[in-house]
């Protein structure tokens, strides 16, 4: 039985620009078959197996739907509307892991030197300094701020190693957004998100998305860079045991560098967002 709190959330299902006429994209959401298509009037619609329409929102270039009764609007990313930014849909990466593990990995910086070697991190610059984590009461989101890390090539527009500052944000159980120092515009943030579609508890489609200040790099190169990063992450995510994200302490051992992950797991547990989670230590 899928908890009501899980069913009442918004989930990404497709890129709006690539959504074609019926039969459109036949996919899965929370283990149920689902279809995303554009009807004769040009409206994007999402239907379950029985043909009933789900509530739909088009935002950040993606199609979002709620299989239950939405309790709130889908989150916003105000920075995405700032003039001068390039919005980049990065396609999709299918990963055989819990959607929650995919989000948690996105919040993690300590793996950069070992998984994204010489790109997002490199030995001996492995230290993760103290940063701040809190739950924003007004929006009920997990935030990590003042995260700093040394990076050899933080972005396509970066030349040489820089100290990058990050902020991380979990606005929905299967979505995460990061803000990072923008090499081209000091003082501004590049914004990168992952929108994770839970096909089942152990299978997900990850839709990376970016809102960058970068007028130079070709679109294909930006997407290629992001795809490379996510394929490196996939080699980790498909080899974690268990596939489900353990929410009870004891199964895995966090350290100070994992404060964001700890807050995310507690937040999921408190809200009953346990689809893709393991509750009892095996």
């Amino acid at each position, binding site marked *: 039985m899928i908890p009501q709190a899980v069913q009442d959330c918004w989930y990404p299902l497709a890129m709006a620009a690539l959504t074609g006429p019926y039969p459109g994209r036949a996919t899965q959401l929370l283990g149920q078959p689902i279809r995303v298509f554009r009807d004769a009037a040009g409206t994007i619609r999402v239907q379950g197996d029985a043909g009933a329409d789900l509530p739909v929102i088009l935002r950040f270039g993606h199609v979002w739907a709620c299989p239950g009764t939405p309790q709130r609007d889908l989150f916003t990313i105000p920075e995405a509307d700032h003039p001068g930014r390039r919005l980049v849909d990065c396609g999709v990466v299918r990963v055989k892991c819990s959607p929650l593990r995919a989000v948690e990995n996105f919040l993690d910086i300590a793996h950069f*030197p*070992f998984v994204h070697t010489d790109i997002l991190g490199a030995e001996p610059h*492995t230290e993760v300094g103290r940063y701040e984590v809190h739950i924003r009461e007004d929006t009920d989101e997990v935030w990590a701020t003042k995260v700093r890390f040394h990076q050899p090539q933080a972005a396509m527009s970066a030349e040489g190693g820089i100290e990058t500052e990050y902020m991380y944000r979990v606005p929905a159980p299967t979505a995460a957004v990061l803000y990072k120092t923008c090499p081209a515009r000091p003082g501004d943030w590049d914004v990168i998100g992952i929108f994770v579609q839970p096909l089942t508890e152990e299978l997900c489609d990850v839709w990376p998305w970016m809102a960058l200040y970068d007028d130079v790099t070709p679109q294909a190169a930006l997407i290629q860079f992001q795809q490379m990063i996510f394929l490196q992450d996939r080699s980790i995510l498909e080899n974690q045991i268990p596939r489900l994200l*353990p929410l009870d302490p004891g199964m895995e051992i966090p*350290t100070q*560098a994992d404060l964001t992950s700890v807050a995310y797991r507690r937040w999921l547990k408190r809200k009953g967002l346990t689809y893709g989670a393991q509750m009892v230590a095996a």
Partner: protein
Amino acid sequence: MKTGGRVTNWVANGLSRDVVAGVVVPGRWQGVDLAIWRSATGVLRAWKDRCPHRGMRLSHGFVRGEGLSCIYHGWTYGTDGRCRSIPAHPDLVPPAAIRAEALDCAEADGVIWVAGAGEAGPLPAVTGLVPLRSLALHALPGQIAAALPGLRLFPGGLRGVVVLGGIQTSLCLLLQELARGQTMIHALCGPQDDPVAVSRGLEDLRRSIEQGVAA
């Protein structure tokens, strides 16, 4: 493996010469996935294939000196299983409770053996034979035994004198059950047998068994 009433917990997990210093490979013992690795000075270890930090398979990691490091965050474990460094916190001495979970492992006659911690009996003896090769089959141990009626069961696998690859050979097949109905054969043969002929004979055998399984 239960063999004629005698029980041994030792399961062959490879040939010694295939796990050289500085490498880590996946293994499997009674349904448990393993990371088997050899340190720079030659110390061999068999651990559960799971880093206690975030559950990543240690068999995807890397060996440096006398330690095995997890590929996810670089947590490094010494040959005693204890975590000795956490790169995100270089100045931290990891608590003693953070450790990899070890199984027993031993080497004899060029074979790597693994057993549950502290519960192993004597090692199965394959003295007098020479290690040949390992190969995986899409078949269960019983199907392999049925295809080779000339071999008899012994603790660890099958052995006997058979004709294989056109020659008579003293053959020993150590059997290791893998996931998804696969079995790894670690083969040894007599010191005077032609290894190339026996090796080709094993490949013919694999084809005929897998065709039988598929049919």
